[in-house]
């Protein structure tokens, strides 16, 4: 999100999901859409039926790539090289939208210098995609009236993640494919309420609605609203920094609500050691997760089915969550738990309902100001929704009027991923999801039908590699990185190319995050889940 915020001024999906049906070209990069966001794939299938062109770039040939007019398999971690190559072609052929660039953007010259220096040959050598294919990708994308870019964690989970996103933003501005229906740069948020957690100030640098903690005005406003004299103005620690803080004896207590870092975070052994070192670990969850097992105190929260509230989806749409059944056992609604702890701690909270909390949010958050539970009956509202009569905002940056003023080009050179293969670790491993499971499996693996569908983890391996290793489908393999080792079953498939393996991360028994690299992007602090060097051995 940091990348989009820097380029456009707003770190969110620029367009609505349903608008994909109006695109005449859709460019998917680093998203296994049919598996991870199936209802977004629906719109893409419909666009294709209507005659839209689909272009897909992904190291792994996922299901939706089978429907692409052009699919390219670039090497993991080479997105910038591929995209800069495309932009080289666009500039060379003179098919950029110069009017849009002149009127609505800035810093184009610095960006152009980087592209001028870069050659198509380099792009091809680095990414492993032929010059011909790069030319075609560029032509199809640039010649569309309404081209939409869809991306996901395949773009962001890299040490160059922010640069990858800024490069996609460059591509959209270069061709004027932003600020209209069916265009834009559209990150698909992996979890149901990632957007909401960010919107609500679940970040170390901002309050709700991205109001900075370092700005005097916002700071004073929130202090007044919350009835305290002062609020801290120093930017807080990000997740990876909190783990370093634990090691340096600076962080002593952590409260984890509904997260499972032991399975979800890179270098799991390291995470576990850090959490064990804490003086106080509070875990609030619905199951005894591997993280909860390390806690000093575990608070039983409730699932979405047992509470009222709101979620904000990947297209910034706020919709209602409604209580269907009473909380299981003595579990309590999570908002009530925080209130109970706060009151015990001595900071008084007296909310009667989530609606009362929401009204407080709307009072102090301009982008949510016009939203109320009453207005959320029906289809929900997409923020920004600044006033009671405002209809919400399906797409951002209308007519090239970016949230930040002008769209900002970034001059970005290709940098290789943090970890390379060598003689000892000759394979590149990348991670992701499978269709029947979600995240760390806390919920899906406790669902009978989903556990039946895919009961255990597996490693996708190219047939040629399997032959070299002398391993057959369904057999066990030992996989190690510089950080850890696991044993897992093998699925032989040409979805992955020779030298590249893929593994889903939902399964704690075969926790692939024991292997992944915690090296992270310097700005967004997103770890490089998508590239890690491994060695394989018959188990």
């Amino acid at each position, binding site marked *: 999100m940091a990348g989009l915020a820097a380029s456009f001024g707003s770190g969110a999906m620029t367009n609505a999901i349903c608008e994909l049906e109006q695109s005449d070209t859709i460019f998917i990069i680093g998203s296994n859409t049919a598996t991870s966001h199936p209802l977004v*794939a629906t719109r893409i299938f419909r666009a294709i039926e209507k005659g839209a062109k689909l272009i897909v770039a992904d190291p792994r040939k996922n299901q939706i790539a089978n429907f692409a007019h052009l699919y390219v398999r670039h090497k993991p971690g080479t997105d910038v090289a591929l995209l800069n190559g495309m932009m080289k072609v666009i500039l060379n052929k003179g098919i950029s939208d110069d009017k849009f660039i002149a009127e609505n953007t800035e810093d184009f010259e610095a960006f152009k210098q980087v592209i001028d220096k870069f050659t198509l040959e380099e792009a091809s050598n680095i990414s492993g995609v032929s010059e011909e294919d790069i030319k075609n990708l560029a032509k199809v994308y640039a010649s569309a009236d309404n081209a939409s870019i869809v991306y996901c964690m395949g773009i962001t989970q890299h040490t160059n993640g922010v640069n990858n996103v800024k490069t996609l933003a460059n591509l959209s501005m270069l061709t004027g494919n932003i600020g209209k229906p069916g265009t834009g740069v559209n990150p698909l948020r992996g979890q149901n309420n990632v957007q909401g957690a960010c919107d609500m100030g679940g970040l170390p640098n901002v309050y709700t609605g991205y109001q900075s903690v370092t700005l005097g005005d916002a700071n004073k406003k929130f202090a007044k609203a919350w009835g305290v004299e002062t609020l801290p103005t120093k930017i807080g620690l990000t997740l990876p920094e909190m783990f370093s803080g634990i090691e340096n004896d600076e962080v002593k207590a952590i409260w984890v609500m509904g997260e499972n870092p032991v399975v979800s975070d890179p270098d799991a052994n390291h995470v576990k050691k850090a959490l064990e070192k804490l003086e106080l670990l509070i875990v609030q969850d619905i199951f005894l997760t591997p993280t909860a097992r390390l806690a000093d105190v575990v608070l039983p929260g409730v699932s979405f089915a047992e509470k009222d509230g709101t979620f904000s989806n990947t297209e910034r749409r706020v919709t209602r969550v409604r209580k269907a059944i009473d909380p299981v056992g003595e579990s309590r609604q999570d908002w009530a738990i925080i209130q109970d702890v706060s009151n015990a701690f001595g900071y008084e909270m007296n909310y009667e309902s989530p609606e009362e909390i929401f009204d407080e949010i709307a009072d102090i958050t301009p982008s949510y100001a016009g939203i109320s539970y009453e207005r959320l*009956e029906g289809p929900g509202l997409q923020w920004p929704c600044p006033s009671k009569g405002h209809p919400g905002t399906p797409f951002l940056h209308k007519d090239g009027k970016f949230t930040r003023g002008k769209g900002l080009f970034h001059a970005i050179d290709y940098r290789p991923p943090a970890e390379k293969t060598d003689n000892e670790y000759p394979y590149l491993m990348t991670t992701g999801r499978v269709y029947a499971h979600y995240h760390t499996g806390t919920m899906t693996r406790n669902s009978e039908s989903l556990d039946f569908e895919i009961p255990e983890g597996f490693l996708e391996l190219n047939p040629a590699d399997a032959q070299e290793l002398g391993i057959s489908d369904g057999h066990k393999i030992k996989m190690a990185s510089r950080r850890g080792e696991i044993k897992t079953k093998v699925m032989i498939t040409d979805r992955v190319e020779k030298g590249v393996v893929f593994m889903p991360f939902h399964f704690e028994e075969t926790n692939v995050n024991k292997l992944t690299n915690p090296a992270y992007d310097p700005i967004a602090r997103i770890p490089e889940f998508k590239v890690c060097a491994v060695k394989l051995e018959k188990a």
Partner: protein
Amino acid sequence: MIDTIKQKISGLLSDASVKGVVALKTANGHVTPCVFQKEDDLDMLSLGDMQASGDTRYPLNKVLITIARQYPDDVFGVLVRGCDERGLYTLYRLNQLDPDKVVPIGFCCPEELAKACECKKPYPDDPVAGEKTKEIFQNRMEEIEGMDISKRFSFWMDQFSKCIKCYGCRNICSMCFCRECSLECEDLVSKGSLPVDIPVFHLTRAMHMADRCIDCGLCEEACPSDIPLRVLYKKTSRIMNAEFGFTSGIEKQEKSPLSMLGPAPDN
């Protein structure tokens, strides 16, 4: 039409001839399947026409099965269109519902919806409300039947390969009540990766729908990949009709030729 139906339900509830009526209501700005147990709530009654006729239909017979399994001794009313009534007849035949415990409240579909569905029988036998309209010819199927065999084959394979294995076609279907499902039998359909096994997954389901499908179309409306499932099942129904003269749920008492033991039919 809705007032007539409201009166009918009101009457059934007031004289306690039913414990509840499975129907639709408008709540939270959306049409919602529900069970009416109090006359006072009937203000919220909906017939499932939000923007267009029948665009918010839901599998009410499926709701009825869920409730009837828990409350087998009680009588329930259920709101039915022509297809739903064919569904009830089929569910009686397959011993999933007891006709003595069900009071159908039938209404006819408007011509607009009958056309959109290409419906064979857009009305129940004994409607409480609405005018019976005539059978509509099956154009969509003719279109696909008109392709030559290799084109038809690749058409279907392309459609099936969009499947994301949500099982929505089965899950939404009132006629799919089996506790063990062939789609989950690993000897028939492998599991664990996408795309799903084609065409086995879809043809297995089509076989199972041959004497059950009542052409309500909810499967196709539930398909995230817009696969024209309804046309596929219309085709199996047509084969059943051509071979055995049987159409699911048209005759209340008729047994399925697929579940009868005895000599093979003459042809």
